């Protein structure tokens, strides 16, 4: 404990002495809030890791309506921020405008890849590739031949998760059935564990024994319901294997924490680079999670199949369909 504390203090001292003058990072979390157990929280974990390691202080804000996105970014710049990290595609337009108006400040945004500013760094993830992997695992693990998917709010990004997952399932077990439900059409769909549990229960009743969720806080209800029924859930964004050890087959992790950490770290070291970073399996941007909570659930067959699928995707032998390319899922 003491050692830890001293380490922190030392890091803080180094940080303040070297960078206090010219490094002031800021993070703008989106509507979900930084403790959404999912996407925003993933970013927060990266930010926290950065703060713990360097002792630097990061300004932060959680928006509650669409006007505040741009307002918050301008406010951070006015407070002297040298690097501003936006979280989520909803902030794309705001960061585009503010980055144009403030060419001396560095900007970065996660889940966006279509902007073009010389001082803007963008991160996007190939969620469909990670979803494909967990689809392979789900198909092999299922005894009923029926697996489920539960999305949060019905938006194209979530259909992208669903589509990759379905492809992974069907490529593995051709006649498997995938049951799909979206939780809702308002942002509350991200935070409705009760409804998540109901949907999971209804999919269990229809025969599903492995259910993948991409539903933020709603997914906690999905995992709970699957665990209560002694079935299997698949987590998303962060490693959720530990939420119900033995009942979470795996998690599709999306390394937004790494994106956040790398952004802040490179800015602090003076090595910030603009550009578009699209992170898929090859770049370790998405993956399936294996740890002590789920290693007993994963048979050799599953491990081999997933490893083979990963290799094939990276090599380009398997093309996972990206819903956002066509606004349509062929599977």
């Amino acid at each position, binding site marked *: 404990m003491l050692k830890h504390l001293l380490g922190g203090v030392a890091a803080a001292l180094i940080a303040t002495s070297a960078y206090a003058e010219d490094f002031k990072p800021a993070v703008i979390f989106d509507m979900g809030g930084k403790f959404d157990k999912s996407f925003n929280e993933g970013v927060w974990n990266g930010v926290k890791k950065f703060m713990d390691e360097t002792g630097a202080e990061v300004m932060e804000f*959680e928006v509650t309506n669409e*006007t505040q996105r741009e307002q918050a970014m301008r406010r951070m710049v006015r407070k002297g921020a040298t690097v501003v990290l936006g979280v989520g595609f909803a902030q*794309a337009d705001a960061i585009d405008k503010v980055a144009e108006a403030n060419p001396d400040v560095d900007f970065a945004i996660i889940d*966006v890849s279509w902007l073009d500013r010389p001082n803007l760094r963008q991160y996007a993830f190939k969620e469909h590739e990670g979803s494909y992997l967990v689809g392979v695992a789900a198909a092999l693990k299922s005894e009923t031949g029926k697996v489920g998917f539960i999305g949060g709010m019905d*938006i194209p990004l979530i259909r992208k998760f669903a589509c990759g997952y379905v492809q992974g399932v069907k490529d593995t077990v051709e006649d498997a059935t995938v049951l799909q439900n979206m939780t809702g*059409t308002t942002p509350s769909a991200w935070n409705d564990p009760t409804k998540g549990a109901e949907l999971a229960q209804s999919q269990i009743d229809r025969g599903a024994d492995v259910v993948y969720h991409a539903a933020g806080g709603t997914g906690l209800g999905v995992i709970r319901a699957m665990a209560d029924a002694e079935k299997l859930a698949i987590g998303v964004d962060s490693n959720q294997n530990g939420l119900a050890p033995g009942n979470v087959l795996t998690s599709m992790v999306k390394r937004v924490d790494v994106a956040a950490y790398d952004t802040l770290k490179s800015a602090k070291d003076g090595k910030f680079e603009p550009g578009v970073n699209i992170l898929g399996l090859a770049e370790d941007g998405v993956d399936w999670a294996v740890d002590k909570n789920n290693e007993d659930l994963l048979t050799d067959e599953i491990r081999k199949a997933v490893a083979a699928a990963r290799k094939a995707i990276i090599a380009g032998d398997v093309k996972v369909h990206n819903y956002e390319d066509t606004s349509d899922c062929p599977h």
Partner: protein
Amino acid sequence: MTRLPAWADYVLIPLLNLALALGVAGLVVLAIGENPLHAMRVMIEGAFVYEGALGYTLYYTTNFIFTGLAVAVAFHARLFNIGGEGQAYLGGLGALLVCLALDSWMPGPLLIPLAIAGAAAFGALWALIPALLQAYRGSHIVITTIMFNFIGAGLMVAVLAGPLMRSGQSNPESREVAEAARLPFIHDILNAMGFDIASSPLNLAFPIALLACFGVWVLIWRTRWGYALRAMGQSEPAAVYAGIPVARMIVAAMAISGALAGLMAINTLLGAQGKVVLNFPSGFGFTGIAVALMGRGHPVGIVLAAFLFGALFQGGTELDFEFTTITREMVLLIQGLIILFSGALALMFVPWISRLLGREGGA
């Protein structure tokens, strides 16, 4: 019931309630280890003093005026319109469709009024169905308007993530409307006149909101129709006896209410954002209920209450910026306390004040 002089009823009591709410909020701030006076100063400066702060406050005020008026008009007929959120959302669709269809060639002076009419029409339409169900089938308006919020949200997701989604990006939102369709920003107007004003989202929707207030005042208090509406709100059986066509009045009142809520969309679509984004009403429709209650259903009261909520909203944002310990949930708590003390507990001080003023009532 004790009666107070008007100045006490309309000025003293609301101020006392506000002071009490702020006092309790201050205690909460104290409890989490911050200085409440400092927090208060940050809030006030954040709402009025900082560069562009007043503009933001008035921008939010505009939203609250529209949704507050919407609730108030229905309330005069004893109809509780909880559907402002959905009506505003659909209003955005109405104005957007007008813009998408016409903004490639139509000049602003023609297009903007049409878009405004589109917002009002779609808002009215969205209130009309619950109104018809209430008037002719007796389905309770509270239930149906709430449910229409969800139907509206579902419809808007389908539209914004489907046919109207801007291509080349993954955010469910419409394309930006042409410059001609945009309401000018107040700071642009004032800068052109030689004043140096910081930029803010405040736009011409604000004076339009004030005009709407005047319109509602005329309608409710200076027309026969308004008199009939208020009579119906006081007592429906009496209204029927007096020959007022109650069902038709319900439909008309709700349509006007929905139209006013729908107009909130122009503040965002034609003003600040220039496009419809997912979930843009973000709770302003619901807060309109509190604004209408606090403003006692009168346009002047609604403007004042909307201004208070606008200031709280903008000042609260600033609190969130300034203190790491004060989160947005804290800001919500403070707003909730104000609603509690000036809405639910509004009459708490009345007996005490009337005794103080030496006007003991018959009770």
